[in-house]
Each structure stands twice: as C-alpha cells, then as structure tokens.
C-alpha cells in the first residue's frame, strides 16, 4: 500500500509531509516528556524487528497468495502510540531508501497512511474497546478491529491522495471499492496474527505486554473463551465488509454522489472549486511563464465541445519535435554516461 512519488502532485506530497512532520514532532515531544530513555533501544530494535517480521511470509488461507504482517498495531500495543509512530516512520524511511518502496516525497503520505492510523486511531480503538482492565476477549476483539479499521483508513487515504494528485484516471467509486476491498481481508489477517502474537508473548513474558496495555486479572480469567468470540467477530466483520464492498461496487455512482455532496464537486479527479482549484490558483500565481504550454491547467473541466479542451492541444509538429528531442537527449545522456564511466577511473575499495 505504499504511495509512490510517481502518482503524486507536489501540493499533495508537501501537504502530507507537513502533516506527518507535525505528528512526528508532537510524538517526539511526548516521548521526551515521558522521559523513559529505556524506550530508545527498544524502539530501535523493534523497528528492525518489523523489517525482519515482514520477511516471514505465510500463505493466506483460502487464496493462493502469501503475505506478511505490517506490524503497526503490534508495535502500538507494545510501546504505545507515540513511540510506535516514530518507529513506523523510521521503518518507512528505511524502506524508501533501502528497498525503494514509494519514494522520498511520498514519505509524508506513507507515514500518514501506515503510521497515523494504526498508531493513533488504532490506539483509540484499543482503549475504547479494551478499557482500563482488559480481559483477553476484549483485547482480542480490539486487536482485530484495530488493524482492519487502520488499513481501511490507510487505503482510503491512498485513494484520496491519488485522486487529488490527478495523475491517475481511475474513477473514485471503482478505485475506492478496489482498494478497500483488497485491504479488508489483509486487515483481518493482520489482526488475527497480532492477537496470536500478543497472546503467545503474554504466555511466556507477560511483563512485555503488560507494561503498556495495563493488563489485569480479567485478562487471565478470560483465557478460555476467546476463540468463539473471534469466530463471531470474523463472521460479523466479513458480513459487514461484504455488504460494504457489494454496495461500493454496485453503486459507485451513489458513492460519487456522496463524495460530491461532501466536497462540492461531482468528480474528485477533475474538480473545480475546493482544494484542487485553490492549489491551481496558487500554481497559476506562482507560475513563472503562465502562458507557456506546460502550464496548461491539467485540471480543466472535461466538457467536450465547449471552451478549452481537456488537455493542451498538441499539433503533429510539436509531438514530433518532442519525440525527436527525447531520443536525442537520451542518446546524449548515453554518450555522456559512457564517457563518464571511462574517465571516472577504478572503483575505490570499501573502508
């Protein structure tokens, strides 16, 4: 679910960088106020653990595919929301650099989509369901619902970010149904594995789990009865999810209508009015050569036969010179590349 630089517009990328940056600053401050230096090494090692845990692939029952956990909810339950958010952010930064997941501008979006929801929303859900003195049953329910909600919200964010950026042609309804449909079972499995891991670790080293979750006697007492609860939960969740997915795919127009009502425009991909138009205005004002071809408004309304066409009118001549220019630039870059390889000398040794 990594958002990619290639699908982003600068406004959306910067917007989410600012939002995630603010959350990071706040979390860092909260951690400093807590004054628990012991958390520093734990967070560092847990960040590495998330990477390692993602290497452990398993088959997803009922399908041919395999998957791995993302670990957001698990971290939140072990170290609390602020430390978990910082840890997830660091994991995503390392992934963007070492594994080329997403990209650097998309980090803001990714930290938001995969950090904010599991850490803060997931934590609220956990607190609301599990309460002060959680039983095993309540904790399990919370640990399953948390990731489902967090992943669905994250997927929804991906849809919004993609559509606001306007690089993809996907219509809102279908994209929405697709992303939320895919991430529903993923969230369920994440939740089930999270519960299993929490319980496994609790059985051996209860203090690791107890510290943050404030588990009390009720947790021990509820030991036997959590299986039927999970199954009930699963059925309920599947039913709800199925209904939502069916509704979403059967009535995309209804969803578009709803979103249209919310945002004051009919199609998010090419809206006029609202945020995108504001950005458009800013872009126009800051444009260096406003009349230039490449500054053509890409968000112009898609009405055929009247006014401006949707995209800049391209005559055959400019297309051709563009294509020829591209090949020439590529050829030049190839030549320069070879020349550089010749003149750069031998590879120095690692030290």
């Amino acid at each position, binding site marked *: 679910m990594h958002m*990619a*630089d*290639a699908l*982003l*517009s600068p406004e959306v*990328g910067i917007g989410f960088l600012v939002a995630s940056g603010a959350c990071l600053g706040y979390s*860092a401050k909260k*951690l*400093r106020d807590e004054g628990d*230096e012991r958390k520093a090494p*734990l967070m560092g*090692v847990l960040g*590495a653990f998330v990477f*390692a*845990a993602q*290497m*452990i692939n*398993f088959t*997803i029952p009922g399908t041919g595919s*395999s998957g791995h956990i993302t670990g957001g909810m698990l971290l939140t339950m072990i170290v609390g929301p602020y430390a978990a958010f*910082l*840890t997830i952010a*660091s994991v995503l*930064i*390392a992934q963007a*650099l*070492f*594994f*080329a997941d997403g*990209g*650097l501008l998309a980090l803001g979006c990714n930290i938001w989509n995969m950090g904010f929801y599991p850490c803060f929303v997931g934590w609220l859900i956990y607190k609301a369901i599990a309460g002060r003195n959680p039983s095993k049953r309540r904790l399990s329910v919370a640990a399953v619902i948390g990731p489902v909600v967090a992943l669905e919200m994250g997927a929804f964010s991906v849809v919004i970010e993609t559509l606001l950026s306007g*690089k*993809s*042609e*996907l*219509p809102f309804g279908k994209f929405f149904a697709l992303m939320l449909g895919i991430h529903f079972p993923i969230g369920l499995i994440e939740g089930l*594995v999270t519960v299993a*891991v929490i319980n496994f*670790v609790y059985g*051996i*080293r209860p203090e690791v789990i107890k510290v943050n979750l404030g588990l009390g006697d009720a947790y021990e007492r509820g030991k036997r009865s959590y299986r039927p609860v999970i199954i009930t939960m699963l059925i309920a969740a599947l039913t709800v999810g199925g209904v939502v997915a069916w509704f979403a795919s059967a009535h995309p127009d209804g969803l578009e209508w709803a979103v249209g009502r919310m945002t004051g425009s009919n199609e998010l991909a090419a809206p006029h009015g609202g945020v995108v138009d504001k950005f458009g205005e800013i872009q126009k004002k800051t444009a260096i050569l406003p009349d230039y071809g490449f500054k053509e408004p*890409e968000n112009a309304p898609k009405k055929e036969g009247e006014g401006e066409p*949707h*995209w800049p009118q391209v*005559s*055959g001549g400019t*297309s051709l*010179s563009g*294509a020829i*220019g*591209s090949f020439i*630039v590529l050829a030049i*870059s190839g030549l*320069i590349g070879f020349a550089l390889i010749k003149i*750069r000398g031998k*590879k*120095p*040794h*690692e*030290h």
Partner: protein
Amino acid sequence: MSHHDANRLDRHAYIDSVIHRLDPRAKVVATFVFIMTVVSYPKYAVAPLIPFVFFPMIMAIMGFVPMGLLLRRLLIASPFIVFIGIFNPLLDRMPMFHIGGLALSGGWMSFISILLRGFLCVGSAIVLIATTSMPKIAEALGELRAPRALVVQLMLLYRYLFILLEEASRMSRARALRAGAGKARIGVATGMISTLLLRTVDRSDSVWQAMQARGFDGQLRAPRRMKWKMKDTMFLLIVIAGSLALRIFPVTRLIGERFFP
C-alpha cells in the same frame, strides 16, 4: 523482500568517491529539489522529463553505484505504480500524440509519464542511500531540524536492521529445512514472529544495559561534525539551477526543433 540488495546498497555507501564526499545535507536537499521538480510536471509530460535522467545517471556513475543493482531495484519497485498507472490507457482513450499516421492516446502518454517519474524518483532515492549511508542521512536530517528522537531512532534502527534481518532469514531457513519448500502456514509464521519478538525484546534489554554502561543520555553523538564546503554549495546550486532551467525551458522540444524545424 530481498535484504541482499539492501545489504549491498548499504556497503556501497562506505566506499569513497566524488559523490560520497559531498556533504550529506547537500545530497538530501538536492534529491528533494530534484524529486519536487519532476513531480511538478503536468500529467501528460513525457519529453520534458527525459533530460532529468542526467541527475541520477551522473550521480550513479560518478558514485560507482552498481548498475545491475540499480536497475533491479527500479524494476522491483514499480509494480504498484504499474498497477495504478495501467488504468490510464484503459480509461483515457482520447488520441493526443501524433507522429505521421501513428496516434498515441492521452492515457498511454500519462502512463509513460508515471513510469518515467517513478524511475526518476526511485532512482534518485537509491542513489542517495548508496552514496551517503543511513547514519549520515539521519545526521543530515537532524541538522535540517528533524526531531532528535527521530534521528536517534533511525540510527538505532539501522544498527540492528541487518542483524535482525539475518536472524529472520536464519529462522526461515530452519523452518524450510524441517518442513520442506513452500511458504509457512499462518500458525507457524505466527510462532516464528512471536519468537522473533521475544528475542528482539531480550536484545533490547542487553542493548540498554550496554548503553547505560556507556552513559547514554538520550542522544547519540556523531564522531565528527559535518563540514560544508565550497563544492557542496556549487553542487546544490547546479542541481537547483539545472532543475529550474529544465522546468522553465522545454529543452527537449527545442533540441527536436533544431533537427526537425
């Protein structure tokens, strides 16, 4: 997720080259400026993006980044981009780009544009890590006013990243040797993850003790401060001016028109 590539990228960051010697802050800012410029193009831009290849290419060559590794990471990183982008040709069929009798639809143009953007942005990120190293990037972020806790976190994460990746791959190998090929069942994987978590927590305890013995106070101190030199200013200026110039003048088209007036 292959951690061998990550390992190679990491080791490569410790060689010495013109690019490796640049100030990490200059490289971080330059990469960001570059990515911002690339994504600021409208969605049908293809030709204007091509000259941007120069930045990651020159950085990669002068930094001795192994080309095979770079290309493989680029390809592995693209599935999500392709998955989202491939809908454009299906949904946007308005012919837009003409050469002779050939017409390309707007959807294909925007799809190619998305792929090109992906290669440029991901490529520059890979070049950044392969020529700078994670601790230096973390330090640079700290110097650029990122929260201290995040910098410490990035450094500690990096220190244990490859150790735990190795641990996880040992566990996977052990399972494969006992259970044969194929993926683990979900219950087995859960057990492995739990065991790994327990070992991780144990490790964090000993790390904490070792850090206490060395007087850890919430800060990791860099062995030496970064020094900003004239060449770093030059490098950053060239990247910014180059990006702006390309963004303002349609260089590709001008070159094309010279040969095809």
